[in-house]
């Protein structure tokens, strides 16, 4: 018999309460992990998508709150292309566009001559020919999600597009996109001669790539900013809000689980006041008595955390099947994600255990022994 054995025996003594407390911790930890992973996965997925496109710089309207939120004139593309050291550029109009009644997709509009068309990893069909209108190339996940195949008609922003190609991108975000000619998307969205971003590739010399001068030259054109994909995402207000909300909800969930432990242990120690008096009467120190109670909290937390991690993995499998957002999510539980959440859960559970433990040893042993 040791303190761990004693704690285990006490937890088994009230199986329903112990199970419910552990379930509470598990759900809280699972929710926290799922929420944080969700926000991270959307950001990471977008970053991976941008990397797959292969931009060195992305040009946006100065002060735009997010990647969808700024508009720049289409002719800016030519002015950027004229800057020394830039090898290719392409404008892009990007937006969430309604398609089927309850579905929306990320729609991208590219100019006919854009190099981006040539980089599309076609799995089936073809890319639009110069001047061809009302045609679309779908990422394979988007095609599957919308139930479209080559030759089908796709409704986008109230306009009809014929599916002429299916792309086999590797990243989750790109697999869920729909690419159409820029002029069609501008017309359908009432954004004539406007684009949201400019993709920029610069000349890669033999040495380390210094994007600074190119950025300065682009930004000197006025009312635009040039950033790397990472900077774009880090400055994106939507992602910032998503991360803040996820973190706040996670903190609340984990704090609730600590309160759960606190409540369970307060009840347990109140019921066992007499036993705590016995421990004191046989010469257990306050520290030892407190430790025996805190160990109970830690054990509940440990089992709850294991349950939480299992639940988060289950969520990882389930998220991609959520119709509205599933094609944007690539949930990857990692040590870097799980460790801080578990550390926070343990820290809060230990704090939640210390209070009932402290309360228990405050009472005089003689008084504790008089309790029923």
């Amino acid at each position, binding site marked *: *018999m040791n303190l761990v054995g004693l704690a285990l*025996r006490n937890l088994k003594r009230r199986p329903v309460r112990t199970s419910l407390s552990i379930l509470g911790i598990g759900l809280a930890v699972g929710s926290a992990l799922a929420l944080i992973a969700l926000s991270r996965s959307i950001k990471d997925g977008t970053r991976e998508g941008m990397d797959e496109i292969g931009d060195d710089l992305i040009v946006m309207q100065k002060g735009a709150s997010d990647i969808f939120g700024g508009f720049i004139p289409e002719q800016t593309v030519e002015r950027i292309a004229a800057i020394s050291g830039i090898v290719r550029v392409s404008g892009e109009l990007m937006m969430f566009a309604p398609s089927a009644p309850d579905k929306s997709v990320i729609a991208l509009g590219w100019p006919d001559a854009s190099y981006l068309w040539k980089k599309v990893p076609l799995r089936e069909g073809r890319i639009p020919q110069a001047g061809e209108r009302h045609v679309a190339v779908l990422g394979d996940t988007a095609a599957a999600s919308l139930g479209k195949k080559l030759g089908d008609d796709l409704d986008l922003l109230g306009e009809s597009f014929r599916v002429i190609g299916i792309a086999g991108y590797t990243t989750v975000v790109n697999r869920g996109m729909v690419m159409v000619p820029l002029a069609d998307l501008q017309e359908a969205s009432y954004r004539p001669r406007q684009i949201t971003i400019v993709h920029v590739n610069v000349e890669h010399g033999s040495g380390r790539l210094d994007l600074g001068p190119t950025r300065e030259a682009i930004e000197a054109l006025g009312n635009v900013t040039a950033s790397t994909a990472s900077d774009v995402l880090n400055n994106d207000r939507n992602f910032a809000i998503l991360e803040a909300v996820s973190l706040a909800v996670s903190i609340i969930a984990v704090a609730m689980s600590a309160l759960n432990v606190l409540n369970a242990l307060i009840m347990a120690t109140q019921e066992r006041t007499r036993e705590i008096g*016995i421990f004191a009467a*046989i010469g257990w*120190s306050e520290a030892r008595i407190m430790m025996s109670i805190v160990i109970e909290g830690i054990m509940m937390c440990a089992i709850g955390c294991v349950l939480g991690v299992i639940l988060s993995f289950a969520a990882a499998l389930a998220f991609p099947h959520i119709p509205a957002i599933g094609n944007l999510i690539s949930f990857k539980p990692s040590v870097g994600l799980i460790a801080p959440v578990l550390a926070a859960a343990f820290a809060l559970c230990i704090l939640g255990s210390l209070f009932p433990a402290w309360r228990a040893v405050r009472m*005089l042993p*003689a008084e504790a022994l008089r309790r029923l």
Partner: protein
Amino acid sequence: MIQLAEGPGVNEPANTAPLIALRGISRIHDGGAIAALRNIDLQIEAGDCVAIVGASGSGKSSMVNLLCGIDYPSTGSVLWQGQAVQTQRSWTRLRRDSIGIVFQEFNLIPTLTVLENVELALLGRGMAAAQRQARAAMVLDRVGLRPRLNHLVTKLSGGERQRVAIARAIVNEPKLLLADEPTGNLDSVSAATVADLLFELSDKTGMTLILVTHDDRLAARCARTIRVRDGVIVGDTRDATASAPIRPAAAS
């Protein structure tokens, strides 16, 4: 083989001070409304066998609680071997190493086995688990519970439970064994067995025994009897013929 030390003062320097003493002790409850003990002076010598007797509510248990530090006096002090015991930590150490307590209600942990209940008193003494278990088993053997080691205490009779409590109280080889109405919840046969066990332990090991009882026959087996009434000591007598011999006849 682990042995309980027998005889008083084994390997210890002589100490002329009483083992434990109460000096001007009062215990007031409810803001002065109830005086459980009033201005008590008492000293107990090492190796003594003392009965504290009195009616219900007379203050006997309050005195025992103060003698083992599970309650604090409102005024006065408790001295252990001449030194005032002033902190909770000091009392905890004394209860761990030098004072064993047997309660009327047994006060065992119901979810644990007989062996585990006794082993609990050895936790925190730096002993390995196997050593703790061997020692607990040896003491339980001594109180006649060897066959019941792995039984839950809830499966035992009252007399057996009290013997577990006695084993737990003596497993640390205390200098002082306090027994608060140890036979109060037992039938007459179990009561006699438990009483015999306590006197035998006191006699063989030389440990000081303070026995709280309202049973005059049990008190008569102690060398010294202290009578308490309304929180005051009203009698303190010594019977040279008692000296805690084992009296098997009591069992019958």
